[in-house]
Structures are given as C-alpha cells and as structure tokens.
C-alpha cells in the first residue's frame, strides 16, 4: 500500500502547475503578474509540507520512488529555487515575453520533474523525470517567440538534447540487458569488479548522456548557445536547477548502483571533471556577452561538482550538496542582478555594464558579491563550499585534480573581475539612474543574505546535509 502522505509535495506541485496555467486563461492581462506571486507563494507553502516529512525513510511503489533526507533536501532546494525564479522572472516576462501564466506553469512543472529525479530509485522513473525536465526547458528556451535567437536556442537545444537522450536510453537498455534489472540497488548487486562488454558500453553511453545534461566538457557545445539565446530567467533556471537535478540523480545512481565498480568508471569522471574545469574557465576569459560568460563559468562549476562525484565518499557527496546549495544562491544572485539590469537597459554585453556603480549602486554591489562568491573569495558562499568539497575530494586521493581545480579558481577570478572593473572603473555612456522594482530588490537582498550566510556560518546547513548523504550509503 502506497502511503500517499509522502507524495503530498508532488501532488501539490502538479496541482499548482495546472492552477497557474488555468489562471492565465481567466485573469485579464493587467493582473497576470499576480500569477507569479501566487506561484511563488504556493512553492513556499509546499516547502512547509516538505519540511514536515524530514526524517522519513520510505520506498514507494516497490522502490521506484524513494523518500529520504537526501531527496527531501533537494526537494526543498528546488522549491526555493522555483520561487526565486518566479519572482525574478515576473518583470522580465511582462516586458519581453508573452503568455505569462504558461511560463510560470512550466517553471513549476520543472520543479516537479526535478523532485522526481532526485527521488527516483530506478532507471525508468529517472529517465521519465529527466525527459519531463528537458522538454520543459526546450519550451522555456524558445519562449521569446519574436526573438530569432531564442527560437534558434530552442531548436539547437532539442536537437542536441534529444540526441543525447537517445544515447542515454540505449545505454540504459544495455545495462538492463546485462544486469536484468533497472533498480539502482539491483544493479549494484549484479555489478562486480569486472564488467561485461555490454555493461561497459551501457555505462559509457549513460555517462555521456548525463554529461551532456550537466554540460560537462566535451559534451558542452550546446550550453553557451542555449544560455545566450534563451530568455534570461530561463538561462538562470537552467544554469542552477537543471544542473542540481542532474547531479542529484547522478549521486544517487552512482552511490547506490555503481559503487562496486568505482575503479572502472572513476577515471572517466576524473577526465570529464578536468576537461570541464580547464575549458570552462579558460574559454570564459575572452567572452563579451554576460550570458555566455556565465555559461562558461557554469561549465567550470560543473567540473568542480564532478570532482565530488569522482571521489564519491559520504564526505564528498556532502561536499557536492553544500557546493550546489551555495552555487545556487550565488548564481541566482548573479542572474537576478543581470535580469534587473537588462529589464531597465535592454543590454547584456559586458561593456554595457560600464558605469553601473553610478547608475545602480545596489545592483552593482550585489553583482560584485555574486562574482566574488563564484570566484571563491572568503566570506562568501563560494569559498566555504568549494573548500569543503575539495577537502573531501583530497581525502579520497584526488590531489592533482583538486590542485587543478584550485588553480583554475584563481584563473576564474580574472574574468569575474573584468565585469566588476566595467561596473566600477569605466565611466557610464548613459546617465539616468536605474530603479529596479520592489520585488526584484527584495529577492536580490534575500539571495545576497543567503550567499553571505552560507559563507560565514555554514554549520546548520552542513549538519543537515551530512545526515542526508550518510543515508545514501547505508
């Protein structure tokens, strides 16, 4: 008998998504902004029901769907991210996009897909949730129907995304054929120290498919184009939420299903991590568009997260989770500041940020905080979480990889500082002051507080995450 109480957040999310879609039909255009506020309120309400489930351990539908602290941590993270995106997107959607209710509804559908991904205990459930997430993002990327670049981003994303999904699916079929099961724990039982050729090929295809979804080098080609072409709120969402969901699924799959064969696949993940860290951070340097800069920076961040996946100890999983939480707050802060600036000016080139410190001192300050945190300077989330993640990876003997990651973090400071230099040193070519809306200002303040709070006092977050990741290995 399935205990439906444990699925309340998922039911509420589905209801909320369709409710927002329906509201779009009945509300007059002038009031559609309230759909976003209502959606954010709904998501925050669902966080309460997620919190009430903490400490529960259950395997629903015969182990297809797992509820544990690990899944609930991600659920909370995705719900909060969704609420932030709704509030940050509202102004932008009203000014530049049509069909507001559908946009917000799709954002909530993506939250639902991500919560299922991190709860999946079996490959079919994981695959369906991953496809739901991908389809949502294909549509969200192409949402600015009047913008040719957005159309192009959508088509590129679906062609490459569907191709990688097909490879992933073929990999799953080979793993199923070799082990006779699709349950993560069943795969662990069938996987020994040596793998059959079929299983090995399946594993390679599986890793390639997921690497594509996480935008890891050499499967990253789509990311800069899609990030640049997609509407800004979509890019923000894609860069944090989709990445977090893929890593949430990967960590569970690898720790519960593929841990016995760690010696076989570890070097593949290490290679992906090293390539992502190096390419992401080096190619970010010559970028002139802020979205492309943040795209390459997020490829580098995917590399840091892969370091944790390659280590795969309870400590390293905690490191990945802590870094994901800090990265989510930081990147959302950076993107929300860029959205606020773009809403007022319509510019997204880095040189257009010249003089931002005079025109919008608050935005410039918060964007500076976000850039320092992304680069990993002390007192901000980026430093604390990276330190925790790299320490855990070093304990597993991945010293040279950690050294490379630390060195590339220093390199990354250069291109983040270039943005700050534009804002504070170069004179403005336009004079009027910018006044971002009340809601955006509030969201920015909360995110900046989160970035600093995680940076100076990460204790409570780390303690909860450690209980969550221990459960994964029991």
């Amino acid at each position: 008998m399935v205990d439906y109480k444990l699925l309340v957040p998922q039911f509420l999310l589905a209801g909320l998504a369709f409710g927002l879609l329906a509201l779009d039909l009945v509300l007059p255009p002038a009031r559609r902004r309230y759909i976003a506020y209502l959606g954010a309120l709904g998501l925050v309400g669902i966080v309460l029901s997620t919190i009430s489930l903490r400490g529960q351990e259950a395997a629903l539908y015969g182990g297809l769907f797992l509820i544990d602290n690990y899944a609930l941590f991600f659920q909370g993270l995705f719900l909060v991210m969704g609420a932030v995106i709704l509030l940050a997107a509202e102004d932008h959607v009203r000014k530049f996009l049509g069909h507001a209710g559908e946009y917000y509804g799709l954002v909530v559908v993506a939250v639902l897909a991500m919560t299922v991904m991190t709860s999946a205990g079996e490959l079919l459930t994981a695959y369906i949730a991953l496809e739901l997430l991908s389809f949502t993002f294909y549509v969200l990327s192409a949402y600015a129907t009047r913008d040719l670049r957005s159309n192009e981003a959508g088509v590129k994303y679906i062609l490459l995304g569907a191709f990688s999904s097909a490879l992933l699916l073929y990999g799953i079929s080979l793993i199923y054929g070799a082990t006779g099961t699709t349950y993560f724990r069943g795969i662990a039982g069938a996987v020994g120290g040596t793998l059959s050729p079929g299983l090995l090929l399946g594993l390679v295809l599986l890793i390639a498919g997921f690497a594509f979804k996480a935008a890891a080098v050499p499967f990253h080609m789509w990311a800069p184009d899609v990030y640049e072409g997609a509407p800004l709120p979509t890019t923000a969402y894609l860069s944090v939420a989709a990445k977090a969901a893929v890593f949430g699924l990967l960590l569970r799959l690898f720790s519960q299903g593929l841990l016995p064969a760690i010696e076989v696949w570890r070097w593949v993940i290490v290679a992906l991590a090293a390539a992502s860290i190096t390419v992401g951070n080096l190619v970010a340097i010559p970028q002139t568009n802020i979205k492309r800069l943040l795209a390459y920076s997020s490829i580098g961040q995917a590399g840091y997260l892969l370091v944790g996946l390659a280590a795969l100890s309870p400590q390293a999983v905690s490191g990945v989770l802590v870094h994901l939480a800090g990265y989510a707050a930081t990147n959302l802060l950076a993107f929300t500041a860029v959205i606020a600036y773009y809403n007022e000016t319509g510019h997204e080139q880095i040189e257009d940020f010249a003089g931002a410190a005079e025109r919008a001192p608050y935005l410039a300050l918060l964007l500076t905080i976000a850039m320092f945190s992304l680069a990993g300077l002390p007192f901000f989330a980026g430093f604390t979480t990276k330190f925790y993640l790299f320490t855990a990876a070093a304990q597993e003997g991945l010293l040279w990889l950690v050294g490379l990651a630390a060195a590339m973090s220093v390199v990354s400071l250069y291109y983040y500082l270039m943005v700050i230099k534009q804002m504070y040193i170069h004179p403005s070519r336009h004079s009027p002051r910018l006044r971002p809306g009340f809601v955006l200002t509030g969201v920015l303040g909360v995110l900046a507080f989160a970035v600093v709070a995680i940076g100076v006092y990460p204790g409570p977050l780390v303690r909860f995450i450690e209980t969550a990741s221990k459960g994964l290995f029991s």
Partner: protein
Amino acid sequence: MNVGLEHYLALSAVLLTIGLYGALAKRNAVAILMAIEIMLNAANVAFVAFSRYVTPQLLTGQVFAMFVITVAAAEAAVGLALVLAIYRSRRTVDATQVDMLKG
C-alpha cells in the same frame, strides 16, 4: 534457423547506426528529428528483446518500451513545433543556416 537474442540485438544495433548516421550527417532539422526517433526505436527493440530473453518472468523492458514510445511522441510534438517556429521566421529548416549564435 532459430531467431534468438543476438538477432534482435543485431537489428537494434543496425537501427542505432542508421539513426546515428542520420542525426550526425543530415542538415535538415526534420530529418535529424526522424533519425533521433530511429535511435529511440533501436533502444525499444533492445528493451523488448532483453525483456523476453533475460527476464522472461518480468515485464520491465516492455513497460520501458511503452513509456519510451510515449516520450518519443512528445518529443516529436515539441521538436516539430520548435522547427515550425524557426521556419516561420527564417524560411529554412537547414540546421547549418541557423547560426546567429556562435559557439
């Protein structure tokens, strides 16, 4: 001659190869979508064959194939809608000519 697991897997591998070739070599966006559908069906053949020969008492593979068919339909719907949107604005579905964004 008995038809066994290896025959089905050979068919699946051939389908996958055709799909891979089409997806990588074609320039028409609709043709690429069709090639991807062939790849998905290659996986379906493998799923059903494994279900029959590896786990005859369980239906896991067949259920998987049913879901994949549904996903493939959704993918065609979203994919064609996006291609149609780009055709309306640019009058082309040639993937090499859609290149405003440089990667």
